C-alpha cells in the first residue's frame, strides 16, 4: 500500500514522475487524468530526454478541443505513485503553454493498480492487485476514516 499527498485545493492532482530516457533521469510533474487513455508528455520534454520524434510512429489523438497528432515514444522507465513501468509507450505532443505541468498521467499507467482518492484530505492510495486485497482495503479504510 502506498499513500501520497496532494493539495486538495489545487485545480489539478499533481503527481511527481521519474522519467528515464536516453539522456538520463528527469523528474517532472504530471497531472493525474483518468479521462486520458494514454500517458502524455510535452514534446519538448521528450526531446530533452533524448527521444527523436521524427524517428518514432505517430498517432491521432482526440482531445477535448479536437484532433491532434502525437508521437509514440518508448519510455524506458516511468516511476510514479510507487509503481515502476518499463518500456511504456508514451505520447509526446505539444501541450498548451498555459498548462503549467509537463504532461498527463493517463489510464494506461493508472490501471496497473487499484487507486483510491480522498479529495477532502488530499490523499491518493494505491494498492497492488493482490490476494490479500481485503486486508489492504481495511488498511485503506482506516487511513481514510482518520481525520
Amino acid at each position: 500500500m502506498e499513500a501520497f499527498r496532494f493539495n486538495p485545493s489545487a485545480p489539478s492532482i499533481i503527481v511527481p514522475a521519474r522519467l528515464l530516457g536516453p539522456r538520463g533521469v528527469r523528474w517532472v510533474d504530471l497531472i493525474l487524468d483518468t479521462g486520458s487513455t494514454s500517458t502524455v508528455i510535452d514534446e519538448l520534454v521528450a526531446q530533452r530526454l533524448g527521444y527523436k520524434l521524427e524517428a518514432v510512429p505517430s498517432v491521432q489523438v482526440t482531445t477535448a478541443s479536437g484532433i491532434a497528432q502525437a508521437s509514440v515514444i518508448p519510455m524506458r522507465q516511468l516511476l510514479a505513485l510507487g509503481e515502476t513501468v518499463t518500456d511504456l509507450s508514451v505520447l509526446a505532443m505539444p501541450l498548451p503553454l498555459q498548462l503549467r505541468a509537463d504532461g498527463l498521467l493517463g489510464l494506461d499507467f493508472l490501471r496497473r493498480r487499484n487507486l483510491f482518492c480522498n479529495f477532502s484530505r488530499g490523499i491518493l492510495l494505491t494498492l497492488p492487485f493482490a490476494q490479500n486485497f481485503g486486508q489492504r482495503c481495511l488498511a485503506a479504510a482506516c487511513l481514510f476514516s482518520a481525520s
Partner: protein
Amino acid sequence: MGEPKPEPIEQLRQRYKDEWLLIKVTKHDRKGLPSEGVLLLHSPDRKAVWAMTENVDGELYVCFAGSTVPEGWEAVLHGSVSL
C-alpha cells in the same frame, strides 16, 4: 563563491512562486520522491529551464512553483488515441 547548498524543495517552491524551477536532486523522502536539491535555475520561461537541462548531468527535477492553470483559467483535459 562556494557551491550552493541543497535546500528542501518545498522551500524553493515557496521562494520562487509562479516560476519554473530546475533542481538537481540531492535527497529523496522515504517514498523515493525528491525532497531536497540544489536550485540551478528559476525562470518564468519554461523553455529556458528545459534548455538548461542539456548542460547538466545528474538527477534533475523540473517543476512549476504554483498552480497548474493561471488564475481565471480552467483546464479541460482528456485524450484518446485512434490508431
